[in-house]
């Protein structure tokens, strides 16, 4: 397909800038935010047209971290693809692990042992906490306060030590297997989790006093970056962005998977639809994750079965022909994997549906008419992980 792209002056910026400048108004300035801007947390680039301090138009330019994860799925065996899932989203990789093995298990009609389900819930929720802590520290850092990231990484370090024991890695987990998980949680690990819960619970009120209730933070985030319910639907936003707009949509409840129906927890929502709403939802979610972990650790003690099913499929497994969609609730929203099998060792097609992708797309509309300085506060509140967007 050959098409004519805009390009009046070959020296005026690159392809995307020229494309963007086509609709540029008079007396305005086109600036690039990124791809090396610290507040974009990776290599996201946003072309912005500004009039004074106000944003008229914004257009995210993606692809700087594109690795063609979906093509990689078509050249490796089903089992070999699991480590890729740790690298799609470094913030909450276990959600991606889960979405992928869940889709394969659907194709193969596998029932996972009860103990494995508990271990999945515990590790996935611990990983959600590390993700939210990473976001929290980095977001406050974006807004100009340095200290909170030290506190959050102090807690996160403990979580990484816990997760390191069963997963043998600290960031890019490839822990789940089709039919269970790689390794059981040992006694020391359970002890560490039990010690962590009361400690972290005592830290959360401090975070609230220190940061959440701080008037300087409130002034920066309240009524900034409005993404309301209808926008969420049009763009397909999910996770804390959607719950921050008042819709109690959480896949752990709305599309129940695994054993989440056994736990007593709430779905925090905020009606404000602004950055502060999304912030408060994530802070409340951390408490709910602790509740789930607490109940799951209790349940794990008398769960049946092993950490993986007997005679679990080998990496060279051949799922029968068919299509399967499996979605889980990641830290950023709906993490979905659509797998198509032709009955061979290698997948026919793997489609990765990432939540940040849709959440960032809504930013372009939300940023219109806001101050340039507020764009940073809005971007940070979306909790973007760029490798997940570019895949």
């Amino acid at each position: 397909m050959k098409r004519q792209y805009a390009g009046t002056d070959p020296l005026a910026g690159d392809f995307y800038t020229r494309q963007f400048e086509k609709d540029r108004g008079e007396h305005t300035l086109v600036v690039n935010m990124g791809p090396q801007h610290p507040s974009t947390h990776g290599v996201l680039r946003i072309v912005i047209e500004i009039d004074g301090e106000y944003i008229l138009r914004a257009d995210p330019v993606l692809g700087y971290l594109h690795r063609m994860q979906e093509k990689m799925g078509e050249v490796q065996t089903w089992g070999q693809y699991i480590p890729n899932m740790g690298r799609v989203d470094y913030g909450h990789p276990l959600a991606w692990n889960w979405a992928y093995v869940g889709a394969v298990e659907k194709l193969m009609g596998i029932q996972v042992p009860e103990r494995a389900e508990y271990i999945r819930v515990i590790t996935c929720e611990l990983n959600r906490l590390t993700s939210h802590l990473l976001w929290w520290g980095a977001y406050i850092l974006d807004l100009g306060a340095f200290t909170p990231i030290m506190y959050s990484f102090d807690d996160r370090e403990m979580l990484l030590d816990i997760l390191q024991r069963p997963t043998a890695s600290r960031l890019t987990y490839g822990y789940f297997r089709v039919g269970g998980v790689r390794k059981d949680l040992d006694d020391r690990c359970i002890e560490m989790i039990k010690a962590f819960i009361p400690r972290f619970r005592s830290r959360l009120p401090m975070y609230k006093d220190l940061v959440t209730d701080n008037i300087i933070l409130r002034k920066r985030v309240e009524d900034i970056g409005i993404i309301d319910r209808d926008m969420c639907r049009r763009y397909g936003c999910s996770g804390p962005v959607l719950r921050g707009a008042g819709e109690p949509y959480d896949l752990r409840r709305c599309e129940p998977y695994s054993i989440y129906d056994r736990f007593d927890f709430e779905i925090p929502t905020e009606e404000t639809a602004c950055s502060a709403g999304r912030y408060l939802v994530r802070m409340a979610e951390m408490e709910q994750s602790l509740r789930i972990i607490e109940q799951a650790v209790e349940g794990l003690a008398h769960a049946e079965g092993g950490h993986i099913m007997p005679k679990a499929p080998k990496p060279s497994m051949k799922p029968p022909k068919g299509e399967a969609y499996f979605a889980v609730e990641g830290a950023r929203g709906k993490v979905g994997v659509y797998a198509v099998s032709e009955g061979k060792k290698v997948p026919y097609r793997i489609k990765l549906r990432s939540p940040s992708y849709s959440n960032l797309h809504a930013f372009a509309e939300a940023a219109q008419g806001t101050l340039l300085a507020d764009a940073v506060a809005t971007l940070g509140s979306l909790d973007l992980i760029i490798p997940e967007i570019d895949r």
Partner: protein
Amino acid sequence: MGLKVLQGVETLCVARCDPAKTGQHWSVFLAPQAIVPAAAALSAAQYSLEDILALDTTDGLLVVYHFNAWRFDERIALKVLLPREDPAIPSITSVFQGAQWHERETRDFHGIVFEGHPNLIPLLMPAEDVDVHPLLKADKARRAIRDIMDAGEIVSCTGEIAALFAPPADTSADAARTDGGSKA
């Protein structure tokens, strides 16, 4: 009972899927010109767009749209089969703005042209590789639709789509008959 939300939209095939096996509740085949009315009907019923992808098959390029409702657990897959020579389909960006990136991505990966898209330029692939479509399969690796998915529990179906899922018995039977004929 059919799929109520798509009443009034011309469908080629409506089939109920087993969510425990496929994660989808409905699989609906549409003609290309029916995709915008279908998206509008789903939008009016408060469905949200999950993703758009394409599958390269010997029958052509199959574009799949996933829609999901928030208040109840239902996932609908809309499927449109396009000819390989001229894979063009109307864009649904006028209904779901979030489709813009999904459509640009599908153009990058499979070369599908979304007519009426406001800005169909490369999204994830580099701008200079505008004609490189990495997910198109080699001729040898390509499979027929019937080899990669099940039809599901069919509610209504046109012969055209039913033939896609019918076992390829017809051709082998023909071949056997001609073989028999030549022997005789």
